[in-house]
């Protein structure tokens, strides 16, 4: 950054040849302009980048906190081999991918449908919109513990209770959380994240040009045609944005696993890293897991940045 900013005035100097004083003034001015930016930049580098570099270093080390463990040493790629060869860790990677993809795609599809419904005028639209937003405003761990204990719990949970009321009695109550731990978490997170995506998509739908939509109707376009040829292309970027942002948040999900299943057959990467603190204490392997999450996130992020940059580039011109 410093290089490029220093370069540009000198290019101008060569072309137009202003006096040295102006050149100095430009330099000073760019520092004055940049000064407000620096505290935030420095703070973020220290608090987020430095720990990550430390994690990267630790992922190449033998480092265990077990009392009888040998001292720290260089491990090469051994920790990464452990991550990919230990079934439980490999499973955690797979679980993270599976749950994130399922939750994001189902939420996005549901959110699009609901946003289309809420885009129409009807009696009580504001009330329905408020009801729809509410799940997103429940503290994640509170939502997780209540879904785990008050709704999906065997016996006294709401689902079991409602089935009983409807006369669907069974010899033994369903223990949904233990038989379908991943699905339970997915349902809870879809409930919590659909509202978020719906809000973005609804804003997208409402930013359509009403005159263009009217023109389409006058020209005889049917509802389906309008949806496929006009609405869908218009909301596409909003759909991309909601998927990208949803992925960034959902891939980091820790609260639902902790609050609903305690990791039973549903340990994802964040939960696996967390467990290291309380059981394995193998810092090297935990760091390697952390690095794996980062690589996964970078893949998502590359796509994410492309989406967001298309939105920013319009403004830069």
């Amino acid at each position, binding site marked *: 950054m410093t290089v490029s900013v220093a370069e540009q005035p000198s290019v101008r100097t060569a072309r137009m040849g202003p006096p040295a004083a102006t050149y100095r003034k430009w330099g000073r001015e760019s520092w004055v302009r940049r000064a407000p930016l620096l505290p935030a930049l420095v*703070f973020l580098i220290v608090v*987020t980048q430095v720990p990550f570099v430390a994690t990267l270093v630790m992922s190449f080390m033998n480092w265990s906190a077990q009392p009888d463990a040998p001292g720290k040493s260089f491990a090469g790629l051994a920790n990464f081999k452990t991550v990919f060869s230990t079934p439980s860790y490999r499973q955690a990677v797979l679980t993270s991918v599976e749950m994130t993809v399922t939750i994001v795609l189902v939420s996005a599809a549901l959110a699009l449908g609901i946003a289309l419904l809420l885009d129409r005028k009807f009696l009580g639209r504001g009330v329905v919109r408020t*009801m729809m*937003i509410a799940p997103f405003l429940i503290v994640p761990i*509170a*939502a997780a513990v*209540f879904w785990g204990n008050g709704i999906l719990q065997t016996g*006294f949970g709401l689902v079991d209770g409602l089935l009983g009321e409807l006369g669907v009695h069974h010899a033994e109550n369903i223990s949904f959380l233990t038989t379908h731990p991943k699905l339970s978490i997915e349902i809870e997170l879809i409930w919590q994240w659909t509202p978020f995506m719906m809000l973005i998509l609804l804003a997208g739908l409402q930013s359509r040009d009403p005159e263009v939509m009217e023109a389409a109707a006058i020209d005889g376009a049917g509802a389906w045609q309008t949806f496929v040829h006009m609405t869908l292309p218009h909301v596409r970027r909003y759909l991309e944005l909601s998927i990208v942002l949803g992925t960034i948040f959902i891939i980091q999900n820790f609260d639902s696993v902790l609050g609903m299943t305690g990791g039973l057959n549903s340990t994802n990467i964040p939960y696996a890293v967390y467990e290291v603190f309380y059981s394995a204490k193998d810092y090297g392997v935990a760091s390697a897991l952390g690095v794996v999450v980062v690589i996964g996130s970078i893949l998502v992020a590359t796509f994410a940045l492309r989406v967001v940059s298309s939105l920013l580039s319009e403004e830069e011109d």
Partner: protein
Amino acid sequence: MTALAPTAPGRLDVAATRSRTRRRLVGGGLALLAWLIGIVFVVPILYMVLTSLHSPAHAQTYPPSWTAPLTLSNYQDLFGATNSIRAPLINSVTTSVVSTLLVLALAIPAAYALSVKPVRRWTDAMFFFLSTKMLPMVAGILPIYLFTTKVIHMPDNVLVLIVLYTSMNLPIAVWMMRSFLAEVPTAIIEAASIDGAGTLRILTRIIAPISMPGVAATSLICFIFAWNEQLYAKVLTSVTAQTAPVFVNTLIQTEHSYLAQLSAGATMVSIPVLIAGFAAQDKLVQGLSLGAVK
């Protein structure tokens, strides 16, 4: 929609009436569907509140005792002498409010340098901020844990959480604030500057009033994210600095009827977020989409 179906001449009126009725029926059906979905989404919350108002014995029956007498005793117990939520709530308020203030102190100048008087290559800086948000929190937690416990000897300390929550929310806040500041028309600023207004005057008289709703929305969203955070709080605190979300999770005590108490705790801890969320409702989307959606 159906109004555009081809109609034979002469039968126009009948067809139009029929199609209008059909359209009304479809519209009514869709409205009903919207209501049903809304109810499905809100029922878990209503049931949580209802359960929190039932006695521990009534809350945990099969099938649920819908009409059991209501009581506030679970909330009284929550603030009772033993195992009270009061200290965790105070910790949550402290960490969320202080970290939000710090975020604003850092983000507003940065956003100013990225929008009103943008530095060269300001998009690079924007993307640096965003990329730190894409780094999963779990990736740095081990060094942070070792540093706070072994190096600076500050385990179980709210200050550590405040610093971490500030870094967690700063990128979002910079993006949000930039989008709000970018809405300040440059023409006004230029006009004021021609009329001889200094930078400070422009800031306090023009930019501040216009961007105030944006600052408010940014603060509310940062507050929500800090309040909700569980991973750092759980790993880095134990007793003194325990936050409310961590406390709620400790209410699962399966040896006795715990559901009523747990529901009260879950409701209690969510109330500030619900208030903040609905207060920020108008700007919620713009904020959460990092300013990409207006």
